[in-house]
């Protein structure tokens, strides 16, 4: 089953040569409710890719499917060519994929430092990486002994990002990093995402603030009704008149 017609057909040929993460003709959803329809997309080595689209388009479902929180009904999720469909989240982490949920993304009753230690649960030694992260995100160093619940929204988002980075993942999935944040804080969070990418992590990100998200991305996908409607370079999507009218508010 497909939902609507695409603005542009998207094929493997448009993806970068070195694909880290790929969804191949995935159908999926929750219970009996189908959300994803024959969805294919890819994330290249070293890229930042942004998924945009209206509410209910299936963006979060894509990330949850990749991370094993939902098992695809059909199709495959591939990490460096190896199928990981349906692998449990705690094992996906060990394969080199990090995930930053949109909400409830820090352990409120634990300190900032403990949150970072939890991020390194799957590795033998994490204090060295945590020390590096404190240098990269000094505000976390200042708050290391504070309970995470006492942090502001922006600080929590940075902590959630840093927690996912303790494993030094090859791929980072980020769900709406700017949700509920003040514009000035959003800039800081996006800057952090860019920094993470520059250090070698490929990023697949969902962003409701489509222009801002695409602004820091290499490529983008426009999702609507559970399938890819448009794919291309971020600049190309931003400049596309139909996309602008339908999905970017004109």
């Amino acid at each position, binding site marked *: 089953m497909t939902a609507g017609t695409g603005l542009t057909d998207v094929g493997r040929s448009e993806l970068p040569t070195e694909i880290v993460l790929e969804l191949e003709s995935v159908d999926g959803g929750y219970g009996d409710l189908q959300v994803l329809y024959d969805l294919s997309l890819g994330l290249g080595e070293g890229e930042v890719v942004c998924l945009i689209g209206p509410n209910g388009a299936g963006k979060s479902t894509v990330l949850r499917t990749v991370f094993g929180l939902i098992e695809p009904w059909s199709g495959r999720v591939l990490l460096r060519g190896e199928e990981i469909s349906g692998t449990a989240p705690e094992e996906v982490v060990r394969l080199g994929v990090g995930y930053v949920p949109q909400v409830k*993304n*820090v*352990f409120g009753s634990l300190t900032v430092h403990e949150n970072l230690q939890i*991020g390194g649960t799957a590795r033998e030694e994490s204090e060295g990486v945590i020390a590096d992260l404190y240098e990269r995100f000094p505000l976390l160093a200042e708050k290391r002994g504070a309970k995470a619940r006492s942090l502001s929204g922006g600080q929590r988002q940075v902590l959630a990002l840093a927690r996912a980075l303790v494993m030094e993942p090859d791929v980072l999935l980020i769900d709406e990093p700017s949700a509920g944040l003040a514009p000035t804080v959003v800039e800081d969070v996006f800057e952090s995402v860019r920094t993470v990418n520059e250090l070698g992590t490929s990023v697949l990100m969902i962003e409701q603030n489509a222009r801002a998200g695409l602004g820091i991305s290499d490529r983008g996908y426009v999702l609507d009704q559970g399938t890819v409607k448009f794919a291309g370079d971020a600049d190309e999507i931003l400049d596309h008149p139909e996309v602008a009218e339908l999905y970017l508010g004109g």
Partner: protein
Amino acid sequence: MCALQLVADGVIFSCIIILGSIGLSLVYDIANFPNFAHGDLMAVGAFGAITANTVLGLPFVAAAVVGIGVGATVGVATERVVFEPLDVGPLELLIASIGVALCYRAVLIGGFGSDPRSYDVGGRGRVEALHEATGIAASPRSIAIVASTLVLVLSLHLLLQYTSLGRQMRATADDPDLARVSGIRTRTVTTAMWIIGGGLAAAGGVFLGLDTIVRPQMGFDLLLVLFAAVILGGIGSVYGAMLGGFAIGMAHELTPLVPGVGTEYKAAVAFVIMILILLFRPSGIMGGKESA
């Protein structure tokens, strides 16, 4: 009876309530349902110890360790065989736990009968030096209960605060989904929680049997007091359960100090205090402050 003696009795009773409450709170924290079988798990531990002590002839300390092991094993086995396979909500799990409690008790009554039993160990008489110095009549058994509880509670505190497993337990209790996406193998952590919760409940049962007698109904009779302690401390908080257990245990034993109130109102007074505190602090003493 002098006030100091009542305080001493309160401390001993509190120790037993604290051990039971911690396990109840841990299980609630991780499994998200009130386990009505927890009181009877205390009795299972006590019977494990008394069997090791009076049937196998082990010394009491070794028998107590066996009892704690039996409680932990039965707790984990129950979780694996009954609770984990049930894909139902908290209310259904609560009802299932009542069924489990009845099963525990039926097995104990079927295997051991309903008659009360005692451990084959001395230490019933009062410690004269303590009595002469303070006027408190406390037996070596009572002192051992308090000392052992302190060791167990301190060990749990060190585990929770200073080990990777403890941190993972607190994180899992805080948000199980986020724990999984952070790489925590939550099934392992859940098993650890059931082991600790079952073991501490069994320890409480062993100590209750040491302080009084061992009988199949002993844990069930304490269940409401345990719930009062957990609710008073703040549901889902281990440290709250410790504080709540201490407060309820002391209130229970200090009731005779209230003019015109007899010892038959012990349990009622404990509940009145719980309700009064919840009127002013609905989330309990530690509610919302600390999980696990």
